[in-house]
């Protein structure tokens, strides 16, 4: 049977992708950010997941205001990088895992999560930047990635509690898949940031650090954070941290914290990262 070996979360700041693509990673500003992911790459190389579930949000690339699905699962065989206005990022095409994705879709819908199934989708920096942070810049991504796009752009996104419960349904789905696959769940976005309006530039490190602590040890507490509190405390766009709760919901109640990293800023955003290992996943 498939099992979840653990989870990771990281911010998905577009400027991080631009720094990689424009080969600026050695500059002191960016070195501060990238040095925090060296240990991550080592851990990923040892953990060698067979499949990654990549939870992210689309930024007006694959979807627009014409169609806004709350949870959309990529069930295709591949997902090309989107052209976000400067040509597609020079990163590998994301290869999916259509069989596992179809199994997840069927399982979570019967578990009362009304998922949108997507069979054609381009993926933007929201997914590809975290893949770079986990895997570096290889010619091919080392394993299939199933994209799960969550609406956090149009208010209201799903609540933190709903996201956590979705993670639980995702866990049940993965564990009932008959093939012996080692799955890593990746949550992206955050941490505190506001990039719109006169309050742009807001960062709340105290909020972020408490969030990381609770993500590791007491995630139920995080499910009680209201949307209003996210926006007030972590910035209007900091609300995307709800996506991290999907990752956490998919893990065991008790996990081992392998690693964390936090720095301010990358462009306009606080960068946070954590790796949690399932005790049952070894």
């Amino acid at each position, binding site marked *: 049977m498939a099992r979840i070996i653990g989870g990771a979360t990281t911010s998905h700041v577009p400027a991080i992708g631009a720094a990689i693509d424009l080969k600026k990673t050695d500059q002191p500003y960016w070195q501060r950010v990238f040095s925090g992911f060296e240990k991550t790459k080592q851990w990923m190389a040892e953990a060698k997941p067979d499949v990654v579930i990549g939870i992210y949000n689309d930024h007006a690339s694959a979807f627009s205001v014409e169609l806004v699905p709350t949870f959309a699962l990529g069930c295709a065989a591949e997902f090309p990088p989107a052209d976000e206005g400067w040509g597609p990022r020079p990163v590998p095409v994301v290869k999916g895992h259509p069989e596992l994705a179809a199994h997840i879709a069927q399982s979570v819908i019967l578990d009362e999560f009304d998922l949108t199934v997507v069979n054609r989708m381009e993926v933007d920096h929201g997914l590809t930047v975290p893949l770079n942070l986990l895997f570096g810049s290889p010619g091919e991504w080392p394993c299939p990635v199933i994209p799960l796009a969550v609406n956090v752009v149009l208010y209201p996104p799903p609540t933190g509690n709903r996201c956590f419960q979705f993670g639980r349904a995702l866990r049940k789905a993965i564990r009932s898949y008959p093939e012996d696959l080692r799955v890593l769940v990746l949550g992206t976005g955050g941490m505190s940031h506001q990039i719109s309006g006169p309050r742009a530039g807001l960062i709340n490190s105290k909020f972020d650090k408490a969030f990381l602590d609770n993500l590791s040890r007491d995630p139920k507490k995080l499910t009680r954070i209201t949307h209003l509190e996210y926006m007030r405390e972590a910035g209007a766009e900091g609300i995307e941290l709800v996506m991290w709760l999907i990752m956490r919901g998919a893990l065991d109640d008790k996990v081992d914290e392998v690693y964390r990293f936090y720095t301010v*800023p990358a462009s306009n955003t606080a960068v946070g990262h954590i790796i949690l290992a399932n005790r049952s996943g070894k």
Partner: protein
Amino acid sequence: MPRQPQEYDDIPGTFVFDAERSRQGYGINMFCMSLMKDENRKAFRASEAEYLKRFPLTPEQAEAILKRDYNRMLELGGNIYYTAKLGATDGHSFQHLAAVMTGMSQEDYAAMMLAGGRKVDGNRSKTEKTRGKKRG
């Protein structure tokens, strides 16, 4: 019908892109989305006002776009991930747009970010901002 008051209207300097704004700003956001295509960027640059006629925009919305009044675009239903495409069409970095929206120079804005960003204290609610006190 006027916009219904929302709890989050109390957050200072913030235009939450909610369902009502999305409805209102559909034209702004679809205009911005169109700028993903080079042929559209060229047509827009050739005659901005003429190009805007392709989209369902109120005179206020069209004016905000022509004047590059980014906060006004957000207030009238634009979303930042969309309006950023207009900024990119103009050749501006995102940080430039952020600085414009805050009324700061890009240099001062970048320095603020390097120093840890805008503090949350005093920026949680409009009342807190006015009184300079912490929320009770």
